[in-house]
């Protein structure tokens, strides 16, 4: 089945027209690729990348290819079609004592999307990216050929595909090593930091914690610049694998674009920061609120109104440290455009995947609603990030320039060579890959 449809990413900007295919068997995926006309084709999962990564002239949704194909209950190695969601994997495997080795802040993404974005989570500093746990990938590179790639076979294609934003072909299935857990609960500790330097110190002190992340207030100034709540956690060992928190809330319609303004966000941030009065609070929570606090609010992207929003996520190397982070934060605070939901995290070392985002350093992610003057602020931030040797996360990006991309992703040429070698360049292309000068 195919339809001319209006589609967009999670940020709801931009909205484009595409020929959308939604096959529920492999032969349908091949047919969509076979019958493609002029223009690029990209695979799309649940549409949670923020910008234009999953937008193209031809879009093949893979969410209906969602079957579990193999599972070894001794080793925890599972093979699934790429359209299965992380939510579904958790539902099936947590009760059996297995957890995702790495998870981003939403479980409503597909396994294929997790690989294409080489997603990271709160444990990046100790566990690295999602693809470290991927043993192999079945990749459709043309209608006649499916290649099995791993660190041993077609390893060049494997490292291009992990984090490759779908530009090397359509990921059909993934073999993933799950992580054993003995509880569905997490022992959480929340620590209060009065400013950015205290926050970064707390990350250092807690570097052995499996999970750590900080919510950071991007509106407070002066000595409270970058005040944060740091949350660290460990899987509990209480042997309770059942249970789930099912409370959810839906944002039913677009909120007025004026709802989120400097004052409402400041109010939210102040309340949020002060919800904890002590320096340190310990509690035990279900994995859902710990890992996926926003999944409890359906369609939270509607909060930003009908014009949509973008999430700006950058990383700067450790050497740039506090000085760099402080300088960039000051620029954001001065703009007054900062949002709630700004997230700070320390990354561990980078991996061998050609377009993977994380590198050893500090990452900050924050939402901005699309409005006049935003892109010039982001251009200024880009320049600072580049100066420090940092880069932006492709999965969130919707507007960085070709030059910014090519300067900050040093392996882009190698990525292109792999695509040329396997004959996929130009066939698999997105609005993003064209904007970044990877396709024409």
């Amino acid at each position, binding site marked *: *089945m195919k339809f001319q449809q209006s589609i967009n990413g999670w940020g709801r900007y931009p909205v484009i027209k595409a020929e959308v295919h*939604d096959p*529920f*068997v492999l032969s349908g995926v091949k047919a969509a690729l076979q019958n493609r006309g002029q223009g690029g084709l990209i695979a799309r999962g649940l549409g949670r990348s923020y910008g234009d990564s999953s937008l193209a002239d031809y879009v093949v949704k893979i969410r209906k290819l969602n079957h579990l*194909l*193999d*599972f070894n209950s001794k080793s925890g190695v599972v093979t699934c079609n790429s359209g299965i969601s992380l939510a579904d994997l958790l539902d*099936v495997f947590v009760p059996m004592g297995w957890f995702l080795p790495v998870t981003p802040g939403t479980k409503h993404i597909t396994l294929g999307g997790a690989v294409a974005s080489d997603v990271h989570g709160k444990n990046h500093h100790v566990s690295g990216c999602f693809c470290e746990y991927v043993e192999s990938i079945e990749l459709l590179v043309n209608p006649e050929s499916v290649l099995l790639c791993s660190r041993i076979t077609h390893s060049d294609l494997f490292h291009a595909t992990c984090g490759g934003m779908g530009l090397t072909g359509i990921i059909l299935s993934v073999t993933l090593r799950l992580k054993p857990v003995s509880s569905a609960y997490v022992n959480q500790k929340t620590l209060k930091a009065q400013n950015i330097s205290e926050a970064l110190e707390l990350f250092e002190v807690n570097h052995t914690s499996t999970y750590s992340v900080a919510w950071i207030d991007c509106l407070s100034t002066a000595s409270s610049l970058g005040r944060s709540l740091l949350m660290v956690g460990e899987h509990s060992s209480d042997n309770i694998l059942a249970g789930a928190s099912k409370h959810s809330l839906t944002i039913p319609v677009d909120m007025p674009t004026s709802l989120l303004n400097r004052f409402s966000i400041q109010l939210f941030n102040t309340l949020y920061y002060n919800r904890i009065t002590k320096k340190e609070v310990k509690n035990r929570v279900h994995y859902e609120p710990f890992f996926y606090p926003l999944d409890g609010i359906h369609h939270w992207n509607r909060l930003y109104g009908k014009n949509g929003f973008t999430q700006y996520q950058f990383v700067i190397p450790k050497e740039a440290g506090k000085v760099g982070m402080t300088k960039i934060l000051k620029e954001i605070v001065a703009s007054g455009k900062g949002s709630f939901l700004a997230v700070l995290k320390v990354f561990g070392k980078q991996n061998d995947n050609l377009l993977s985002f994380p590198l050893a350093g500090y990452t900050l992610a924050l939402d901005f609603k699309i409005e006049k003057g935003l892109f010039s602020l982001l251009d200024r931030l880009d320049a600072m990030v580049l100066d420090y040797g940092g880069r932006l996360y492709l999965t969130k990006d919707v507007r960085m320039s070709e030059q910014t991309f090519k300067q900050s992703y040093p392996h882009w040429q190698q990525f292109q060579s792999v695509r040329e070698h396997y004959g996929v360049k130009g066939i698999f292309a997105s609005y993003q890959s064209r904007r970044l000068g990877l396709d024409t």
Partner: protein
Amino acid sequence: MKKILIIGATSAIAEATAQSFAKEGARLFLIARNTERLATQATDLGIRGALSVDYALLDVNDRSNHQQALQRAIETLGEIDVVLIAHGTLGNQTDCEKDSETALLELETNAVSTIALLTKLANIFEKQHHGTIAVISSVAGDRGRPSNYVYGTAKAAVTTFCEGLQARMFKSGVHVLIIKPGLVATPMTEALSMPALLVADPNLIAADIVRAIDKKTDVLYTPWYWKYIMAGIIHIPTALFKKFNL
């Protein structure tokens, strides 16, 4: 452990329901026409916890093959605790208006085949003296509406048939469940532009179905608010209803 037969097993609602049953460790027998999908679905349900999963291919419009498919299910499962009939197509109403053959094919798939299967299944269940026959009808069968009255006609036939069957089977201790989903996000409905607020996830429908089977509900509107929406639609006076394009 429950023994469950699902006809139209690759439909989104059926698949979500099968996953629920698999989690409980049921034995499943799947019937559908797409062999490619069925094969991986069987593997999937096994990993999710089903004690056994078997399947047979059947195009429900080949009525001469009904007996054989049902026979295989019974031989595999022994007896059937629950049968879920979930196959269906949502044809294009405009095409049905242009061509009587298209309209009749829509009735074949959504009504005639279901009635044929139910006739055979009713006799099997009557001898068994227990079990649930769950049939996916639709809110579309509650009142003919210009946007989908051919589909609605088929579903009205299924509903009426099942109402009679309900009373007949009651005497043998067999439960008949009439399921009336509203708008569900499935492959069948994706070409429609539907009001996002009213579109439900198949997993939600599946959870309602499993609960209704357990509670021996007679008629299930799912999600629940469709009961009230349809009550409203049924009571709009015809003189006024004709003016709408619902």
